[in-house]
């Protein structure tokens, strides 16, 4: 059964989602990847406020391809999330409740997810053309000079995902592969 999620995602809502849940996300989400995370947090240290309030917000680790004329966005699949492990514990502390990406996360991230209540949702890596069909609008809201790495505000409808790591630390990457491993 698919669970519909409408953003913003509250801490309580994030805590209610369990590893293995198949979800469809509708609402506003923001893209940010390596360079945007680095700049956001370095700026914050200098006293410059975040360009987007992270409270109950969703960050999609992604950098879209350019839109063709008449399209909302180009292909936009997830990027590998571990590169954001250096930043995610802090963004979660700042209010982030939902991350969308692909690939493993480290213990510091899962500890922060447990402590504050956040969820990590996997999208299918390499399915960027298909995922772009769920994006209804896209605008750059910060760091335009970073090109694809700028922060984009996306309105999505029924964006497909699967809860990979939940706020209790259950992790499909740890539980599922051993079921299919053969000697």
């Amino acid at each position, binding site marked *: 059964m698919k669970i519909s999620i409408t953003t913003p995602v509250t801490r309580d809502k994030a805590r209610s989602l369990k590893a293995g849940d198949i979800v469809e996300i509708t609402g506003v989400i923001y893209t940010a990847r390596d360079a945007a995370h680095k700049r956001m947090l370095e700026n914050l240290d200098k006293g410059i406020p975040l360009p987007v309030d992270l409270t109950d917000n969703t960050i999609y680790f992604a950098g879209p*391809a350019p839109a063709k004329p008449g399209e909302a966005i180009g*292909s936009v699949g997830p990027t590998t999330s571990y590169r954001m492990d250096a930043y995610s514990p802090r963004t979660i502390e700042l209010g982030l409740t939902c991350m969308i990406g692909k690939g*493993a996360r480290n213990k510091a991230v899962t500890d922060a997810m447990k402590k504050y209540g956040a969820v990590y949702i996997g999208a299918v890596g390499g399915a960027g053309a298909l995922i*772009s069909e769920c994006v209804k609008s896209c605008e750059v809201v910060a760091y335009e000079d970073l090109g694809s790495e700028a922060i984009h505000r996306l309105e999505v409808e029924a964006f497909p995902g699967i809860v990979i790591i939940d706020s209790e630390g259950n992790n499909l990457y740890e539980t599922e592969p051993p079921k*299919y491993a053969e000697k």
Partner: protein
Amino acid sequence: MREVNVSKITDCIKRLCIDANCSLNDDIYFSLKNSLEGEKSPIGRDILNQIIKNADLARKKCKPICQDTGMAVIFIEIGQDVHITGGSLTDAVNEGVRQGYKDGFLRKSVVGDPLIRVNTGDNTPAVIHYNITEGDKIKIDVAPKGFGSENMSKIYMLKPSDGIEGVKNSVIDCIKKAGPNPCPPMVVGVGIGGNFEKCACLAKKALLRPVGSSSDIPYIADMERELLVRANKLGIGPQGLGGSTTVLGINIEAFATHIAGLPVAVNISCHVTRHRSAVI
């Protein structure tokens, strides 16, 4: 001497960049379709179906299969009887990349300096490998490579005493450590022999060979088959969420090496392993 104007090379590379990024090669496409039948995980089958649907959509709409349209890796074999006219060959290659990535609405993913990290805005420079061969033709392979999988690649400087078991264990170790990160099902290119940089180039070149093809060297072909079976018993599965489709193909290239060494490079690639070639 046969003369070839650089503008022909620019046009050719532009076209290959767009084709490679928007239209998945048949070998990978049919390998994905074939893997559906053997996939034991229901989630794994669902993911494989999404991946196939994505490739169909990308081809239909001439849209990038994956938003990471990569760094453009270009192999150029130039016949020694060709005279290139009209300007710099390297400039012509980069111009082809520039035009392809702009006109094809492909993502510009290259920063000009690895530490200062400012995007060059046109996906240049490309990584270009030149080779001189016999004849009067120019063969061009364009292989855009995303970095989700590139980051999971490794070089193992083994000892001769590690032997074939050492080589096999290195390949499996690399796939295991990559886990869910490189967008499995993966395609794996392996280079054995040469020296530090030669084995890495061999591994990259191995990825140009179609999935399902075998090495001409019988014992290497046996190793390819054995490693594919072993890799698919790891359980990693599509997207690392468990299953029996972890690797679509393992291609190995070998070269002479030094009496003291046994270098092995493992270049991990994803289910959007791309390349296109042309001869001028």
